[in-house]
């Protein structure tokens, strides 16, 4: 069960309110109680001083009755007046007959006949009579409980009300999120339009912005894929047409030599279509590859490996391959992709160089940058077309060698992934394709 933001907010705010409220109530309660105790103590002292004033006169034993209770908070105050022999001379009706407190000066708490009393004792001016004024503690407690109750009652009533209001407030605050969820949830998979940012609350805006960025990236990659599929389907049409037309010529002709020629062309066409498909797949794979360039790639070793693979084909065409590399040069990248890159460049060079010539592969360091270059002895590419050759499916005029027009697109893409600059320029013998690794 995931954490509900709403529940969490509600719980946190309610707990906070409760804790603060209880703390405030406790503080108020204890503070009030202290003040109130002091007030009552002061009353005891005042009552005692009145008695002191009276006890100086010779008094008969009198019964003191308090006026009837006018208020529930009216306190039951008892008093005792003891003479110098500590004989009880005077006491209120509610006072016990034994000494309320042994202490003769000041306040004390005592239990008499199972009841707790707060007692103020004092001696009169002649220090003959002991006057004790007392009040039942349970009455005091009752009063204190009343105060506490009054403090807590609004809390108990308002807490559920507060919870309800908070719930409404939190729900309303979270509505943009709910709306966003619904909007994203109802989207068709192909709908990658940006979500509206302006109307969203500030906290949600970054989320929407990130989502929009994601949508944009997905849209771009989808577009790329669509374009690629369309291009690929389009480019496969021509070789397939060629194969079909050649096959129809083979069927229609009565000339054996022409039939053989047409059938040879059918096979050639199939080979070309196969190569095109392979390169399309390679390109698609590169396009979907992340930029994982963390591996160390020894360029010299990779070049040697690729040259060894291509050498048999080159020998068949009487093309010599030569690797010129001093020490090993290591670049960060993806060795698999670099192998594909090198194979495409060298393969391309071998295809376009005349028989009896050579293709040179050079790995070197130029002003701190690792440079990889492949030079052939072919006819090169006209200046005007140099910028276009790396476009997908582009094949320069007069190209006789079989090719899909995808090889350099693959090279370009891999170079881009490796942040290497691809450069094509005429050399003294033919064409030089060079890559500078940063």
């Amino acid at each position: 069960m995931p954490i509900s933001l709403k529940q969490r907010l509600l719980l946190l705010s309610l707990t906070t309110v409760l804790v603060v409220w209880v703390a405030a109530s406790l503080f108020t309660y204890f503070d009030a109680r202290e003040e109130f105790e002091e007030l009552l103590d002061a009353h005891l002292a005042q009552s005692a001083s009145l008695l002191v004033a009276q006890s100086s006169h010779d008094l008969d034993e009198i019964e003191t009755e308090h006026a009837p209770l006018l208020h529930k908070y009216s306190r039951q105050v008892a008093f005792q007046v003891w003479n110098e022999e500590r004989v009880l001379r005077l006491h209120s009706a509610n006072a016990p007959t034994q000494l309320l407190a042994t202490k003769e000066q000041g306040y004390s708490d005592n239990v008499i006949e199972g009841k707790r009393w707060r007692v103020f004792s004092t001696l009169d001016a002649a220090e003959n009579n002991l006057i004790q004024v007392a009040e039942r503690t349970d009455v005091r407690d009752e009063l204190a409980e009343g105060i506490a109750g009054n403090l807590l009652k609004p809390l108990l009533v308002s807490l559920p009300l507060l919870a309800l209001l908070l719930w409404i407030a939190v729900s309303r605050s979270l509505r943009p999120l709910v709306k966003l969820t619904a909007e994203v949830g109802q989207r068709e998979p192909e709908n990658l339009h940006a979500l509206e940012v302006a109307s969203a609350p500030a906290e949600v805006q970054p989320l929407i912005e990130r989502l929009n960025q994601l949508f944009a990236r997905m849209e771009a990659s989808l577009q790329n894929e669509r374009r690629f599929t369309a291009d690929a389907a389009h480019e496969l049409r021509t070789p397939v047409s060629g194969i079909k037309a050649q096959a129809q010529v083979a069927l229609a002709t009565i000339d054996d030599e022409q039939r053989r020629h047409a059938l040879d062309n059918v096979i050639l066409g199939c080979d070309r279509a196969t190569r095109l498909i392979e390169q399309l797949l390679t390109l698609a794979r590169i396009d979907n590859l992340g930029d994982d360039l963390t591996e160390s790639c020894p360029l010299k070793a990779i070049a040697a490996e690729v040259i060894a693979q291509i050498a048999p084909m080159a020998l068949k065409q009487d093309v010599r391959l030569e690797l010129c590399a001093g020490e090993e040069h290591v670049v960060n990248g993806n060795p698999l992709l670099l192998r594909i890159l090198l194979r495409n460049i060298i393969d391309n060079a071998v295809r376009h160089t005349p028989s009896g010539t050579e293709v040179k592969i050079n790995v070197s360091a130029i002003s701190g940058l690792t440079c990889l270059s492949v030079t052939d002895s072919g006819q090169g590419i006209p200046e005007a077309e140099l910028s276009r050759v790396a476009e997908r499916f582009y094949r320069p005029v007069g190209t006789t060698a079989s090719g899909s027009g995808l090889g350099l697109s693959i090279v370009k893409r891999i170079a881009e992934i490796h942040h290497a600059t691809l450069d094509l320029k005429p050399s003294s013998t033919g064409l030089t394709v060079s890559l500078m690794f940063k």
Partner: protein
Amino acid sequence: MRILVVEDDALLGDALQAGLKLAGYAVDWMKDGASADQALLTEPYAAAVLDLGLPRLSGLALLQRLRGRHHTIPVLILTARDTVEDRIKGLDAGADDYLVKPFDMGELSARLRALIRRSSGKPAAALSAGGVELDPATHKVRYGGVPIELQAREFAVLHALMLNAGRVLSRAQIEEQLYAWGEEIESNAVEVHIHHLRRKLFSRLIETIRGVGYLIPD
């Protein structure tokens, strides 16, 4: 009938050339738009098969240039671009027909026959003059209902004359329709073909206008 094929793909161009030759056409094959434009300026083609994605001069640009010169040659666009917009663009640029790759050789020749028929102002599939019937689709010729065996070149000469019935064609004009570029033209080939045609059909079908050329009367 001489056809211009403009196609940059080697295998497809080769097949088009061979296939259309088998269908009885003389075929010139150009691999880019600019050389096709040059060829169209000088050679009298009966029709052109045009790819759109061409180096140096795109098919559409070539077509616009051609129509800008009021060249009336029937043009069939043969392309991998198959969207409705592409077809509309192609036809509006001045193409007479539009065929999407991959195609069938039979269909391509049938469409070319239809285009040539219409451009010659003779909409019936079979041509007839003076009791001779010629079917360009089947390469069959009948005279008075009886099938006549003709060689490919003889058929082509008869086809050219019948398409242009009522008009005089010079020897050079007939030759241009018979031979593609680079093909060896025998010096008196046209005379030989006419002679054979007269022998196989009847002597008065093809009239000779001395010093000018030949004609089949309407």
